[in-house]
């Protein structure tokens, strides 16, 4: 029999008919449909037992307690912890998206070393050895002081360990990134004559004068303040928002006062002047518990009479007067300091002006006011051991030329970093970076990048691939806050003592290590007095010993607090003559009062101010994918950033709504789109912080413009803190 075309076809037909008579087609169809659900990229929810872990959020300094829902070892959802003194069940969009920082694409998965411009994975042992060799070489060469550290971690044991590490090596150049809270704390400390922390008893206030503080936009402790704002609404407290731009907070306020940008301090002084002139101040406080009031009064009446204040601030004198009367007449008034989310420190003068305003109405150490609480040293660690090299290193000045531990100028190391790092007292030879992304978030970030290029050895502890890591020689990646133990100090502005703890909600996903452990290990490897300064086997032991009996409660509850706490009464706090509240404290009445923005008004007719929003994270940690999706298309569209321009200003320049424009400042030039916005003063333009990231995260990188590239720092002569609130700018049609 020959196989011809017909019989071949027939064979096929027979096979087809036969197949139809078997279960094969039906079974195969069924199996294939199930197979399509098993493709490796199809997300499959974890199955198993659900558990809840109490921990703390460490993304921002807000200090919220969180409860993480887990299924087996997979974290499924982050919620606010019920009953927590800071946030009581509430959570912000960033905190809610924290799992994307754990499981997301920007994690660094192993220690890495840069070789010929490329990252190479190395072991922890090798990484620690590389760092200790470099440090040893610098120390033996008598250059211990040329080792620096930039830390974005506020207080807490990790930052204390890093500072201790630098001191034990012999370097005075530990740089902690200051915020408006640090500026306010310094102002309070100066005026109270002692080192103080400042708490705002916001929930109890009934008249809130906010000098640009974005109380519902992330200011100091975001969730706590949003909750306080709800309390104000309920009990009909008054919120007056003073800023050049109609922010969300201004829109929610009872009154919005569009003050000239940068004139907030003058407005506070103008209000104080009216209160003094009309004798509306709290006489019990001022007469019995303060000093320097006469000088203060003279300065106010001389420099901030309503007319003068009106001309500086652009707020009519009648408005200033009525604000002053309402504020002084309220039973529990409070004035808030710190623009936007409070990340920028601002000038000491402005912080003092706001605190003086609180003081003259007696809103100090009483319900609804500012609570000044004496700072106590957080730990009783043994003294730092120092060998000859360390002692010699610490005899050097800091890179800014000041003595180590100088209180005069705590902020200048950061505000002048890009200049000091290469042409300060001596150039930095090695730099550690922890919890910070200076190449993105420092003002004039391009200059910071240029400075980083000149520092020969940079070690980053970042968990994420960010702009600063790109300039590092080595990364020793930290666990994320959902994988590590770390104490979370009381949030900015919390009056009552609270301490939280982050804990390993899940086992570490990658080959990362707690920075606390890395520092202890590094010290051990360097040996000698450096190793002796770190007597703990590991970071967890350090935490347990530091917190002693408190550790048990921290472990069990996730936080410790003292809800009955109240500050010392006026009688106790300001008893001694020397301890009285000082209206004429050093650096206030004689200080530089206004910061003039950089640039000449001929070439740059407009003023650019940055602003903060809850939808954009402007600090060390950029927006996770969920949060970047919430940004409106009047702020970011595809890859274009928008700048807010008053239609009147836009009309003069001739840029349409949505049109492209070139925005230039003395620091740089970018292409932007224009958003006509009635809520901004003519002549002022605004852009948000938090866009224009580099790095490798496709959800975040190359989206919009980093406003920090456009604005340079202006160190406050009093404190060294960056006092810049904006910059002169030019907008032209592109």
């Amino acid at each position, binding site marked *: 029999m020959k196989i*011809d075309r017909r019989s071949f076809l*027939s064979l096929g037909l*027979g096979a087809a008919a*036969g197949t139809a*008579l078997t279960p094969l087609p039906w079974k195969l169809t069924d199996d294939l449909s199930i197979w399509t659900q098993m493709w490796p990229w199809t997300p499959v929810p974890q199955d198993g037992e659900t558990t809840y872990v109490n921990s703390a959020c460490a993304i921002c300094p807000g200090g919220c307690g969180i409860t993480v829902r887990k299924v087996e070892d997979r974290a499924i959802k982050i919620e606010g912890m019920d009953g927590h003194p800071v946030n009581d069940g509430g959570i912000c969009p960033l905190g809610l998206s924290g799992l994307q920082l754990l499981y997301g694409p920007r994690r660094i998965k192993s220690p890495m070393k840069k070789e010929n411009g490329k990252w190479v994975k190395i072991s922890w042992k090798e990484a620690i050895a590389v760092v200790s060799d470099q440090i040893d070489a610098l120390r033996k060469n008598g250059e211990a002081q040329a080792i620096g550290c930039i830390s974005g971690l506020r207080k807490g044991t990790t930052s204390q360990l890093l500072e201790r590490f630098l001191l034990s090596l012999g370097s005075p150049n530990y740089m902690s990134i200051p915020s408006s809270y640090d500026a306010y704390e310094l102002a309070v400390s100066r005026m109270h004559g002692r080192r103080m922390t400042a708490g705002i008893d916001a929930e109890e206030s009934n008249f809130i004068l906010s000098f640009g503080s974005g109380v519902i936009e992330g200011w100091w402790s975001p969730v706590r303040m949003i909750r306080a704002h709800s309390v104000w609404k309920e009990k009909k407290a008054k919120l007056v928002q003073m800023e050049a731009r109609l922010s969300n907070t201004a829109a929610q306020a009872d009154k919005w006062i569009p003050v000239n940008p940068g004139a907030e301090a003058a407005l506070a002084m103008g209000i104080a002047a009216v209160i003094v002139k009309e004798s509306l101040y709290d006489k019990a406080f001022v007469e019995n518990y303060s000093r320097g009031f006469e000088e203060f009064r003279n300065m106010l009446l001389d420099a901030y009479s309503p007319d003068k204040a009106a001309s500086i601030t652009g707020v009519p004198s009648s408005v200033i007067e009525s604000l002053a009367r309402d504020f002084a007449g309220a039973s529990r008034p409070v004035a808030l300091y710190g623009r936007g989310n409070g990340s920028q420190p601002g000038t000491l003068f402005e912080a003092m002006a706001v605190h003086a305003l609180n003081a003259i109405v007696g809103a100090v150490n009483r319900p609804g006011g500012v609570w000044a609480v004496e700072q106590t040293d957080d730990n009783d660690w043994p003294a730092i051991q120092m060998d000859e090299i360390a002692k010699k290193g610490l005899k050097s000045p800091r890179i800014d030329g000041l003595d180590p531990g100088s209180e005069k100028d705590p902020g200048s190391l950061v505000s002048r970093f890009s200049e000091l790092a290469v042409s300060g007292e001596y150039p930095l030879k090695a730099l550690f970076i922890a919890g910070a992304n200076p190449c993105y978030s420092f003002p004039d970030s391009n200059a910071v990048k240029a400075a980083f290029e000149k520092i020969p050895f940079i070690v980053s502890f970042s968990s994420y691939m960010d702009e600063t890591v790109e300039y590092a020689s080595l990364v020793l990646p930290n666990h994320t806050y959902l994988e590590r133990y770390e104490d979370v100090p009381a949030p900015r502005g919390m009056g009552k003592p609270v301490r939280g703890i982050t804990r390993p909600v899940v086992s570490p996903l990658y080959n990362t290590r707690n920075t606390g452990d890395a520092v202890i290990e590094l010290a051990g490897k360097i040996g000698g007095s450096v190793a002796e300064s770190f007597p703990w086997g590991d970071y967890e032991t350090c935490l347990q010993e530091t917190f002693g009996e408190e550790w048990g409660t921290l472990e069990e509850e996730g936080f410790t607090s003292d809800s009955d706490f109240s500050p010392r009464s006026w009688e106790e706090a300001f008893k001694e003559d020397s301890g009285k509240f000082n209206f004429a404290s050093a650096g206030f009445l004689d200080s530089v009062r206004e910061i003039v923005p950089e640039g000449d008004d001929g070439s740059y007719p407009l003023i650019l101010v940055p602003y903060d929003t809850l939808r954009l994270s402007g600090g060390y940690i950029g927006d996770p994918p969920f949060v970047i999706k919430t940004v409106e298309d009047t702020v970011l569209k595809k890859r274009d950033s928008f700048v807010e321009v008053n239609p009147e200003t836009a009309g003069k320049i001739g840029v349409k709504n949505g049109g492209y424009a070139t925005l230039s400042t003395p620091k740089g030039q970018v292409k932007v789109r224009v958003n006509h916005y009635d809520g901004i003063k003519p002549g002022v333009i605004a852009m948000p912080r938090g866009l224009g990231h580099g790095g490798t995260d496709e959800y975040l990188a190359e989206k919009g413009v980093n406003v920090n590239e456009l604005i340079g720092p202006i160190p406050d002569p009093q404190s060294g803190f960056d006092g810049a609130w904006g910059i002169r700018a030019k907008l032209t049609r592109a």
Partner: protein
Amino acid sequence: MSTIEENTKDSVDAAVKEPGAPEKESEKIEPGLAQGSIIVSFVIGLAIALIIGWIVFPALLYSEKEQPFDFSHEVHNDLVDGCESCHYFRDDGTFAGVPKLWLCRDCHEEVQGGTADEETFVYEYVWNDREVPWRIYSKQPDCVFFSHAAHVVKAEMDCETCHGPIGESDSLKPYEENVITGYSRDIWGKSISGLNKKHIWESMKMDDCADCHKEAGMESSVQTKKDACFVCHK
């Protein structure tokens, strides 16, 4: 079948109608013979397909996998108080399924009975704190949502109704893994045709769920009274 016959007839006609056309090798075959070979081919094709479909395919589709070690439900059942001692409901009402190591550890911190399987369990898993990677016969695809509580607690059904008399077994049967889906053969059922089903537990496809629900008069969603796809498919 008629198509084949027509095709054949057409070809034959074509050969007859065009005598002048150059004869090709294949067309020299006589009509009767050609028809015979076509039928034979058809039958061969049919036979091959039937063999593949009924014998080769099932043999290739399932790959027999061993469990990490053997386990006797019978032995355990005598020592504990019913299935729920190990296969329990959690406090939140979810069903724990195959027990985790912590539960087994209550008794098996040390070797109890001395079988080789138990030694494997204790030395390799308990002592190393490793969960046993059991292959689960009744594991359903991820999109299938099934509530044990609704069936066992609310409807008071026995475990055996769906899972069979597994509690009486002395050893674990081989796990036949479907090489395409990765799930057990027990879901489709031993019979490849899906026919001849004698017990409910012999297969666990959607139709099997539907059979019982139909019998119990519960064909629609309790809430909507309509077809209830999303009750199970989530």
